[in-house]
């Protein structure tokens, strides 16, 4: 194991291997402090960033952060590493990679350069370079990356910004859910997915909800996809039972142990991927998986230890989840950045930073990345912080965010972004819905020529059928 040393002022700091160095170089966050791996002072953090900047990228191929022998995510990362794609940056250090990315991001062929290197970068390399980057670097490079995915709509095209319509209900009441779907559609939301977190794990309840969304979609000829966010094994069963499943959902994490705590491994995800693809229900694309991630999930599961039994910082582990995701060509991936609570991300500053890091790392690694811009009531955060993160992510080319009535999820008990927030960010940044969805909105007179959603009288809209008999 390499020991890294860095002098900073009059003190020489020592870092015991890559795991320690990555953790100490991480911007401050409560989860790393809870895990006991954070820098103990700002000076130690600055020293770690200096030392990390000098680490050659090849070190990440030689020294696994989580042991290869005991972790299938590590084996996936190293076995699928593309040496040819890595070649343009193979001689660089972490600091050199930051400079290279910032140069590439302003080149005429930025998107091509960044796409070409994607499979040559490991999650640990992406996490490492992100620790050296300021927020504006994370935004600038992520914006230059172009990742598109498609099912019945196309996600991630330049100048587009999509939303997951999230009409959750504490008891899965179909009338209440339909009312929230109606409200969201009238605001032009739902072009990424109409996705429900069910209140129970019951397969029958999930099937009922999938049918509910599918009936709405077919009745109104909406180019959208449905998802009920239940466990992947439940969804596999629904597919076998002939339920009209569009997207297959699963929460994933960056270690084998954390994934096991979610009740999944790579082979189960492979089975789900094959089942989803077999349905072939997409019209403009075949991406059929939907993953959620979030910093802190591995620590929460007690599955955050890496090489030498040391705790790995939560942002590096989060980036490793993206290696799992990209194996299965998802339509959508999002970090649920502020959901986990203040013991992992304490306040608005930490949530904003983490949201930008997650978006950058995922985009760089080739994922259609969105973000659940959110917070809980015991975190030091409020809607002003969410406005900031939403605006920054819009500038960074984020693929999609959540759209929830009044930003208040009455089932999960947290606050995310609203229908109004989606109109806001599209307005200030000149962004439009996914093209297929915008064309549908236009056919119903719901958008103007610039793709902006008009105020609509619900009683005069054909969608009013969603409200049931009046």
């Amino acid at each position: 194991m390499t020991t890294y040393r860095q002098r900073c002022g009059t003190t020489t700091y020592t870092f015991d291997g890559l795991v320690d160095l990555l953790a100490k170089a991480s911007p401050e966050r409560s989860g790393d402090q809870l895990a006991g791996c954070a820098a103990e002072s700002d000076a130690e953090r600055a020293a770690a960033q200096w030392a990390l900047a000098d680490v050659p990228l090849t070190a990440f191929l030689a020294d696994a952060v989580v042991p290869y022998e005991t972790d299938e995510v590590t084996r996936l990362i190293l076995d699928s590493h593309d040496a040819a794609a890595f070649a343009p940056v193979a001689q660089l250090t972490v600091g050199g990679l930051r400079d290279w990315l910032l140069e590439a991001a302003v080149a005429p062929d930025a998107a091509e350069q960044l796409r070409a290197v994607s499979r040559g970068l490991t999650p640990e390399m992406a996490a490492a370079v992100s620790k050296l980057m300021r927020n504006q670097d994370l935004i600038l490079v992520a914006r230059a990356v172009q990742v598109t995915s498609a099912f019945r709509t196309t996600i991630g095209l330049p100048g587009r910004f999509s939303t997951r319509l999230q009409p959750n209900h504490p008891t899965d009441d179909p009338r209440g859910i339909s009312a929230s779907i109606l409200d969201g559609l009238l605001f032009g939301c739902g072009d990424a997915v109409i996705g429900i977190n069910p209140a129970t794990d019951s397969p029958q309840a999930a099937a009922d909800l999938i049918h509910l969304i599918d009936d709405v979609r077919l009745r109104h000829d909406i180019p959208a996809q449905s998802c009920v966010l239940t466990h992947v094994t439940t969804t596999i069963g629904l597919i076998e039972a002939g339920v009209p499943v569009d997207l297959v959902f699963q929460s994933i994490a960056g270690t084998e142990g954390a994934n096991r705590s979610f009740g999944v491994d790579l082979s189960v995800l492979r089975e789900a991927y094959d089942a989803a693809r077999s349905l072939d229900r997409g019209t403009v694309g075949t991406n059929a998986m939907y993953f959620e991630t979030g910093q802190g999930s591995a620590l929460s599961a007690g599955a955050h230890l890496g090489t030498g039994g040391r705790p790995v910082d939560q942002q590096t582990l989060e980036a490793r989840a993206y290696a799992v995701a990209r194996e299965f060509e998802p339509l959508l991936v999002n970090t649920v950045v502020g959901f986990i609570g203040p013991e992992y991300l304490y306040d608005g500053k930490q949530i904003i930073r983490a949201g930008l890091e997650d978006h950058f790392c995922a985009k760089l690694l080739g994922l259609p990345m969105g973000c659940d811009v959110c917070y809980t009531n015991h975190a030091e955060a409020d809607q002003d912080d969410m406005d900031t993160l939403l605006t920054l992510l819009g500038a960074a080319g984020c693929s999609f965010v959540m759209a929830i009535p009044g930003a208040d999820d009455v089932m999960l008990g947290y606050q995310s972004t609203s229908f109004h927030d989606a109109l806001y960010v599209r307005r200030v940044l000149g962004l439009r819905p996914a093209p297929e969805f915008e064309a549908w909105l236009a056919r119903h007179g719901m958008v103007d020529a610039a793709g902006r959603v008009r105020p609509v009288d619900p009683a005069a809209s054909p969608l009013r059928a969603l409200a049931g008999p009046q």
Partner: protein
Amino acid sequence: MSGDVAAQGADFWEPLRRTTQARIGLGRSGDSLPTRHLLEFRAAHAAARDAVHEPLDVAALQAQLDEPAHVVSSRASSRSEYLRRPDLGREPADLFSLPAPPPGSAAGPDLAIVLADGLSARALSDHGAAAYAALRAAMPGLTFAPPVIALQARVALGDHIGAALGARAVLVLIGERPGLSVADSIGVYLTHAPRPGRTDADRNCVSNVHPPHGMSYDAAARIVASLVAGARELGRSGVDLKDTSRDSALDSAPGGDGGELGQ
């Protein structure tokens, strides 16, 4: 024109609001949230934040209980530390204030009840004493340790308290993480044979106790009494213990609704 749309919209959404608590049909000021709804949201968030941060009025809670209560604090010395360090909230600062258990394992009480502030001291202030009384009344055949009020407490702090009292089982009544619409809900966690090192898989939880909107004290007490009896028969609580007193609304899996995952 926009005023007309808003007026029609108000009528249109009214019946739909009876189907969901979601904030539907809010209308638009341009692309944005109308002032009234902005202020409603802020007020709800402020209530939830205050519920997290207001300290428990220990004297008032003691006065509501019919018998003297002991007071224990966790190792978390402030609210800020409590929120950052759930591990400290699971461990007692000290247990000197508790009475020593009677000699001999057979002599201990059947049940200890801990009233914990958790993430909402307001919830405990509003519902703690009444829920405590309902629980006592629902289990007339059992012997009880004196009640314990626990400050800056997570669920697992009850394992230390139950063990120190020599109790065969412990119930932790704890303030749940406040939501935007409900800031005063308590959960009740059962741990059979409590001792340090128990995990969430060893517990059963009844959550969302906050009459009149949530579960009533008596309904919660009936379910808990059934779980306590089941655990005494089975010899353990947790994932193997199923509630047979009702069909749903039980989080037999660990965690519950209290933001208490990973406790």
